[in-house]
C-alpha cells in the first residue's frame, strides 16, 4: 500500500491534456524505477486479494459466488482509486523516477480499468443477491439501495463515476472544453468520499475485522496526507519562500507568449534547463488551474522564463497577465535535462517543443565547439519562435541550426526519417540526442535515431499532448 496516493482537487493539471506549451512528458533511460513502482502496486493488489481470501468462506452456490466476486472487485476497485490518486499526488520520487508523462498515462489507463472494476462490482453484487433472494435484478437493486444508507451513497458515487467516464471518453472529450473536463474530473474526490462508508458497513472483509478497517483507513489517510502535503502545503511553502511574481509578458510570435517570473532565492530550487514547473497564476481567470510549462531559458537566481502557445482558454489568458501577479509554482520536475556525456549533441524540437530545447541549447558547455546541431521543425514560418535567440546562441557556440518548415505533405518527405537525418548529420551514432515535440513527431524521431544506431540511453525525449 505504499505507492498509494492521490492528488487533491486544487492544483490538478493532468500532464497530458490539451493545455498548451510543452507539457513535459517522456523521458529516456532509468527504466528500473517504473518497474519498481508497478511491482509495489501489484503487491498491494495481491495483499488486497489476500484480505478477501481470508474472509471469504467456502462458497456453495452461484449466488454467493457472484457476491464474492463482487466483493473482490469492489476491494480491488477501491484500492485502485487509492493508487490512481497516489500517482497524481506529485510525490517527488515518482515525479523524478517515473516521470510526469508516464504517471499521467498510467493514471488515464488505470482510470478506465478501475471504472470497469467498479461496474463489475455493482453488477456482480446485484446479480448475486438477486439469485440468493430469488428476486428480479431490478427489485434487488432497488432493495439494496433503499435498505442501506451507505449503499445509497455508494450508488450516487457510482453514477458520478459514470458521468466522469462519459465526459472523459475520447469521443466526448474532444467536444468539451478542457476546463469542463477538468472540473468534472474533480468530482472523483466526491465519489471516493461517498463510496467510503459502504466498504466498512457492508464489506465482509471489514465488518469482521477491526485490523482490516484500521489498515484500510490508514491507506486512505496516507494518500490523503500526501496529497495535502505535496499538492497544497508544499506549493504554498514555496510561494512563501520564493515569492514568485510575474515580471512581464512578451509576445514571441502569433499566439506565443513568454512570461517572466521573478522571485527570491530561485537558485535554491536547483532547477535545470529542460525541467518544468506546474504554474498557477493567482489572477481571477487563472486561479483555479495549474498547468505544466517548461522553462524556456536558463533559470537565473532572480528570474525564470516560460513560453506558452495559446491553444486553450488557459494559455490564451496568459497574454493578459499583469506584472505583479503572484504565482504558485510546483517543481522543478522532469528528467529531460542535458546529460553532459561529452558526446556531440543533436537536438530536435517540434513546434512549441522548442521551449525546453531552447533552455538546454543555451546550457550546453562551450567546450563542445562544433559538436552541436539543432533541428527545429515547424509547420509554418510564423510558428517559429526564438529565432534571434537561437541564432545568437548558435553563433556563440559554433552550432548549426536547421529550420525545417512545412508539413510533411507540403515538403513531400519526412525530414525526420532515418535517411534524411543521416544525410543531414553524418556520424549520428556518436551523438547524444534530445527530442521534444508532439507525440507523433517525437515517436518518429526516436525511432529514426534508434535505426541509425544511437543507443536508447543516449536518446532523451519528451513528448507533449494537447
Amino acid at each position, binding site marked *: 500500500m505504499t505507492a498509494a496516493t492521490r492528488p487533491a482537487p486544487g492544483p490538478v493539471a493532468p500532464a497530458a491534456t490539451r493545455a498548451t506549451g510543452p507539457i513535459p512528458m517522456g523521458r529516456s533511460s532509468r527504466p528500473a524505477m517504473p518497474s519498481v513502482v508497478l511491482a509495489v502496486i501489484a503487491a498491494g493488489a495481491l495483499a488486497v*486479494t489476500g484480505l*478477501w*481470501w*481470508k*474472509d*471469504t*468462506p*467456502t*462458497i*456453495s*452456490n452461484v449466488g*454467493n*459466488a457472484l*457476491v*464474492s*466476486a463482487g*466483493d*473482490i*472487485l469492489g476491494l*480491488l476497485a477501491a484500492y485502485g482509486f487509492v493508487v490512481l490518486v497516489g500517482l497524481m499526488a506529485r510525490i517527488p520520487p515518482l515525479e523524478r523516477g517515473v516521470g510526469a508523462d508516464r504517471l499521467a498515462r498510467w493514471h488515464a*489507463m488505470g482510470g*478506465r*480499468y478501475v471504472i*470497469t*472494476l467498479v461496474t*463489475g462490482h455493482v453488477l456482480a453484487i446485484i446479480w*448475486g443477491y438477486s439469485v*440468493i*433472494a*430469488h428476486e428480479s435484478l431490478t427489485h434487488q437493486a432497488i432493495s*439494496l439501495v433503499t*435498505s*442501506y*444508507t*451507505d449503499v445509497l451513497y455508494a450508488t450516487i458515487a457510482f453514477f458520478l463515476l459514470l458521468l466522469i467516464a462519459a465526459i472523459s471518453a475520447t469521443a466526448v472529450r474532444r467536444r468539451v472544453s478542457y476546463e469542463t473536463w477538468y472540473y468534472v474530473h474533480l468530482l472523483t474526490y466526491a465519489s471516493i468520499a461517498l463510496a467510503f462508508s459502504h466498504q466498512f*458497513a*457492508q*464489506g*465482509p472483509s471489514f*465488518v*469482521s*475485522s*477491526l*485490523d*482490516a478497517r484500521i489498515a484500510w483507513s490508514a491507506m486512505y489517510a496516507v494518500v490523503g496526507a500526501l496529497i495535502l502535503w505535496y499538492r497544497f502545503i508544499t506549493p504554498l511553502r514555496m510561494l512563501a519562500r520564493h515569492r514568485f511574481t510575474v515580471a512581464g509578458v512578451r509576445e514571441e510570435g502569433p499566439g506565443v507568449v513568454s512570461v517572466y517570473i521573478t522571485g527570491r532565492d530561485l537558485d535554491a530550487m536547483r532547477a535545470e534547463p529542460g525541467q518544468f514547473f506546474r504554474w498557477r497564476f493567482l489572477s481571477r481567470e487563472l486561479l483555479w488551474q495549474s498547468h505544466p510549462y517548461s522553462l524556456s531559458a536558463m533559470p537565473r537566481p532572480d528570474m525564470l522564463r516560460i513560453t506558452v502557445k495559446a491553444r486553450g482558454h488557459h494559455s490564451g489568458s496568459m497574454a493578459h497577465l499583469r506584472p505583479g501577479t503572484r504565482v504558485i509554482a510546483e517543481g522543478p520536475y522532469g528528467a529531460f535535462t542535458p546529460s553532459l556525456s561529452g558526446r556531440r549533441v543533436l537536438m530536435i524540437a517540434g513546434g512549441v517543443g522548442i521551449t525546453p530545447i531552447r533552455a538546454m541549447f543555451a546550457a550546453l558547455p562551450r567546450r563542445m565547439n562544433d559538436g552541436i546541431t539543432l533541428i527545429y521543425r515547424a509547420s509554418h514560418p510564423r510558428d517559429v519562435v526564438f529565432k534571434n535567440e537561437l541564432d545568437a546562441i548558435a553563433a556563440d557556440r559554433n552550432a548549426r541550426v536547421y529550420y525545417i518548415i512545412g508539413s510533411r505533405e507540403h515538403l513531400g518527405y519526412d525530414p525526420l526519417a532515418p535517411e534524411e537525418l543521416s544525410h543531414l548529420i553524418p556520424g549520428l551514432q556518436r551523438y547524444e540526442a534530445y527530442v521534444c515535440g508532439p507525440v507523433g513527431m517525437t515517436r518518429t524521431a526516436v525511432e529514426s535515431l534508434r535505426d541509425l544506431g544511437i543507443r536508447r540511453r543516449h536518446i532523451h525525449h519528451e513528448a507533449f499532448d494537447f
Partner: protein
Amino acid sequence: MLRAVLALGGTAAGIAALIAVKFHPAASSTLAGSQSLMSPSASAPAATAPPATTHPAATSSAAKPSAKASSSSGGTGGGTGQSTTARTFTGAVDNTQYGPMQVAITVSGKTITKITVVQQTDNGSESQSIDSMALPKLTSEALAAQNANIDAVSGASYTSAGYKQSLQSAIDMAGL
C-alpha cells in the same frame, strides 16, 4: 487496446479462478457438514476478533439449551402436544460480536413451518441494516432446507453464524 483487453481478461480469469477454488457445492445435510460450512466464517474473524464470543455457544448449544428451551417453549405456549399440533422451540442465544442472536422455530409434525427471530444483533445501525437484509434470506433458506445447514449471507457472517447456531440448537431440542 490490446493491453486493455489483456488486463480485463486477466482480472476476470483471476477472479473466476479464485472463486472456483473456494467453490464447494453444499452437499451433506449432517451436522458435521453444517459445522464445516460455518467454520470458515467463524474462524477467519477469530484471527483478529475474540473467538470466545462464537465458540462457546457452538459447544454448549447441545447441553444448556434444553433448560432454556423448555422454559421458553412453555412461555411461547407451544405446549407439549403430539406431532399433529404445532410446537415452538426456542434456540439457544448465540452471542456474536455484534450482540445476541436467537431464533425460535415452530414445528408441525416433522416440518419446520415458521422461524421467528427472538433476538437479533443490536450493535448500532450497521448491524440492524445488515440484519434486515440477512435475516429474511437466512429464514427462507432454512425453511427450504429444513435444517441449519444453510449458506452464510455474504456481508453478514456473524449474523449468519449466530443464526445457524441458535437454529441448530432449536432443531436439536425439537428432535428433528
